[in-house]
């Protein structure tokens, strides 16, 4: 049964005032490796149908992976029955109307058809190179395809298929490690040789790290670390629900210059340089949404519910899937930190004394209003002295407001890297040079 047939069965069985059907069909394969061998190798075929039934301003949700027609009809009835139980929610203004959606290409048959043997071959390159270097490699390669469809009784009907390829590795030496990752919607984005070389070079650079006193230092962040800045800022409040509830770093800052002039953060679901997706989970076309422009906080992103709570607002096409768990609220899924004009080498050369950081790990919000985050550096932390990387140091813990950190942006890299986001979607980020960053402890 295709998505249109599924939607038709649900719609015809629904007695609700408005009905929405969201469908996912996913094929995901993942090969994991550690200690230079494949130890986990999995594949999954799944579907998920989410029905949102609206009676007046009351919403019921039902979710299933059973595609039998009688089950789909029952799903529609269940969602309506759940809606009937509730008091009206006057803040809900209805499901979206149909809008023109411009298709965007993000499907590569080579990813969708990637075999276990192909994945093993790619992973094998990394494991062999690590073994030759006297190291142990761990990591994973993902090849997945997703068909997503949204239909509602107001005329919305949208379908999109996309693929995701991702490969990452931590390569470990006796007392150091290196990280490398590649992400894209096309298989050509995966470069196993380059991944292995990048991580192994970091292992060599990082050998015999020394203790280092925590404190406030200038930093040069590789794109892997920059990605965390965007992901945590997104999690801590780039969505309108967080702002409306007063728990976002954007509260009280919209229209104000809060970061360096060079900082431009935008969500662009149509940009093929990222992992594009032309509409959100309500079937609203994704608009290019500036979040920070020339250092000024512009606006969070909206879905139809949060837009309906503010006069004159329209959804920006950033709805997340409906969930019985409650509204997560709108979220940016294709974030870009616009590149600057500085090379990574120049950032290092212009640092008199500071730290060079490969990536951050296990970062968590300490306080959302200023996006204060704590986490560790990992897989390569180095001292920069007089414009050169001087020596490796042991990983450090930082506790830092990411908003304040970007206020002291001194340079932004000229090239960007697309990376799969831990919160879904992807980020496209360059290296950055920040004047101040606060490290609060060290580890052994």
């Amino acid at each position, binding site marked *: 049964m295709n998505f249109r047939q599924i939607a038709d069965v649900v719609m015809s069985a629904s007695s609700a005032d408005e009905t929405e059907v969201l469908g996912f069909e996913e094929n995901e394969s993942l090969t994991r490796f550690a200690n230079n*061998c494949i130890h986990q*190798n999995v594949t999954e*075929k799944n579907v998920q149908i989410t029905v949102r039934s609206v009676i007046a301003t009351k919403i019921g949700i*039902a979710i299933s992976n059973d595609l039998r027609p009688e089950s789909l009809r029952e799903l529609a009835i269940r969602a309506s029955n759940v809606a009937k139980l509730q008091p009206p929610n006057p803040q809900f203004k209805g499901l979206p109307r149909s809008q023109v959606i411009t298709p965007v290409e993000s499907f590569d048959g080579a990813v969708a058809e990637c075999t276990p043997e192909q994945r093993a071959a790619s992973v*094998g390159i990394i494991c062999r190179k690590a073994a030759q270097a006297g190291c142990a490699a761990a990591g994973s390669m993902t090849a997945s395809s997703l068909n997503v469809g949204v239909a509602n009784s107001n005329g919305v009907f949208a379908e999109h298929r996309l693929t995701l390829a991702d490969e990452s590795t931590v390569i470990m030496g006796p007392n150091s490690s290196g990280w490398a990752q590649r992400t894209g919607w096309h298989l050509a984005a995966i470069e196993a040789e380059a991944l292995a070389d990048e991580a192994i070079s970091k292992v060599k650079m990082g050998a015999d790290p020394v203790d280092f006193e925590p404190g406030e230092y200038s930093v040069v962040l590789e794109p892997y670390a920059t990605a965390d800045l965007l992901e945590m800022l997104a999690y801590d409040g780039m969505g309108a629900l967080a702002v409306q509830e007063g728990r976002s770093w954007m509260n009280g800052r919209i229209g104000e210059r809060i970061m360096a002039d060079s900082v431009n953060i935008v969500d662009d679901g149509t940009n093929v340089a990222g992992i594009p997706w032309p509409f959100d989970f309500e079937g609203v076309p994704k608009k290019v949404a500036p979040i920070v422009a020339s250092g000024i906080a512009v606006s969070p992103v909206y879905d139809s519910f949060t837009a309906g709570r503010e006069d004159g607002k329209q959804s920006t096409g950033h709805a997340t899937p409906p969930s019985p768990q*409650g509204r997560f609220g709108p979220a940016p899924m294709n974030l870009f930190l616009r590149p600057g004009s500085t090379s990574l080498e120049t950032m290092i050369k212009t640092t008199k004394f500071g730290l060079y950081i490969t990536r951050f790990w296990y970062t968590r919000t300490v306080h959302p209003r200023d996006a*204060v985050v704590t986490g560790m550096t990992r897989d390569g932390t180095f001292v920069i002295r007089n414009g050169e990387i001087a020596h490796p140091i042991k990983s450090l*813990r930082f506790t830092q407001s990411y908003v304040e950190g970007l206020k002291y942006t001194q340079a932004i890299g000229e090239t960007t890297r697309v990376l799969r986001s831990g919160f879904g979607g992807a980020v496209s980020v360059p290296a950055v040079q920040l004047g101040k960053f606060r490290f609060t402890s060290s580890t052994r």
Partner: protein
Amino acid sequence: MKDFTSHALNVATAKGARYADIRIIDHRQQVVSVKNGNVDGIGDQYSQGFGIRVLVGNSWGFASSAFVAKAEIERVATLAVQIAMASARVPGPPVDLGSPVRSTGQYTTPIEVDPFSISLEQKLDLLFRADEILRRNSGVRVSEANAIAVRNHKFFSNTEGAFVEQILYESGGAVAATAVSDTEVQTRSHPNSFRYQGTGGWEYVTDADLVGNAERVAAEAAALLSAEVCPRKDTTLVLDSSQVALQIHESCGHPTELDRVFGTEAAFAGRSFLTIEKRNNFRYGSDIVNLTADSVRPTGLGTFGWDDEGVPASSTPLVRDGEFVGYLMSRETASTLALESNGCMRADGWNRLPLIRMTNVSLEPGTWELDDIIADTDDGIFMETNRSWSIDDMRLNFQFGTEIGYEIKGGKRVRLLKNCTYAGITPDFWKSCDAIGNSRHWRLWGTPNCGKGEPMQTMGTGHGASPARFRNVKVGVFR
């Protein structure tokens, strides 16, 4: 059901597997969420499917599908074997699963009230009553109340002769109030900041008394807006039992997972400082620290009849009198140490591979009354209910934050404190533990959101704990 499982195992064996297992799962989940007087989310989620794991030579393969039908089982079993053969192109060391597992039987979570027998109207009524009380406090911007019911009907069978059927129930609920000012946001929750959840029936939710605690939760959230920020210093720290549970989860539960020790989670969840030479040879904590992993204590999120390798539920010490003595293990990892699995392999659904997961990792009770711990503390800080958590990839350097704190002076709780954090190094921290609350204060908490593995799996784990005191701890690392 045996027809399906036997067919899958026969196909896998015929295709070349020397070991195979299959899990068929029917999952139902019902969640009700209320926010600011409105329904924020409500509905049912159904998911069914099966996963087949095979060992061909010394290489593993796993495949799964949502379509439980004979032809699909054949396709998936064949695919699992093909994947295992592909794994063999980048081979590892010999795999020894230890003694055969031939478990048979049925297990159902003991419940008093089936959580699905409580109507949505009844659930909404409870949550709206709690939510209304939260909103009476004018300082509260966001009021939230939620409840969850889960039913997992699982069949497991393997080529060694095991066939077990389990029906696992989970219930849970929580309330939270968020107070907001122009420059500050503070949240208080009850009973815990993650949803309070355990294996049990609806009685688990009613026992949590969401309505009876709503007024206090709202008042504390509002009061926190104008509270002093936790000072930055080295001091004595007293943690409530829920925060001790979080501390156990991060700094004992995860580092005792033997797959981490062997490096197989290095690229994602991280490794462990508790390397194998340390077993029976490493001081993890002070003499009064005793930590146990069990899957038998009632209401724990790690409580079941058999794990997802068919190994029966059990109880094993991890830390005894402060000495590190044991791991959380699978069949494969246990055999590497010439041990038998203690039944810690679980998957979060039919579509995921079982991994070593915490069962109920608990700190055994001590001898102290909480009031006596406070009275015995001249200068320190009492912290309650987790708010943030971060720990390094070896599980050594941690920094945790709590929703609320109180300064302790002269044996009494005095000033209210906000934005409380504390930091340390795992064994140093546990070695500084000099008081643990007695069994009256011991409570088995649930952590429903433990992430591990690729693709990511979210697992529920249990942690029993009493309040405890730690000396010379760095607190107040906020900016």
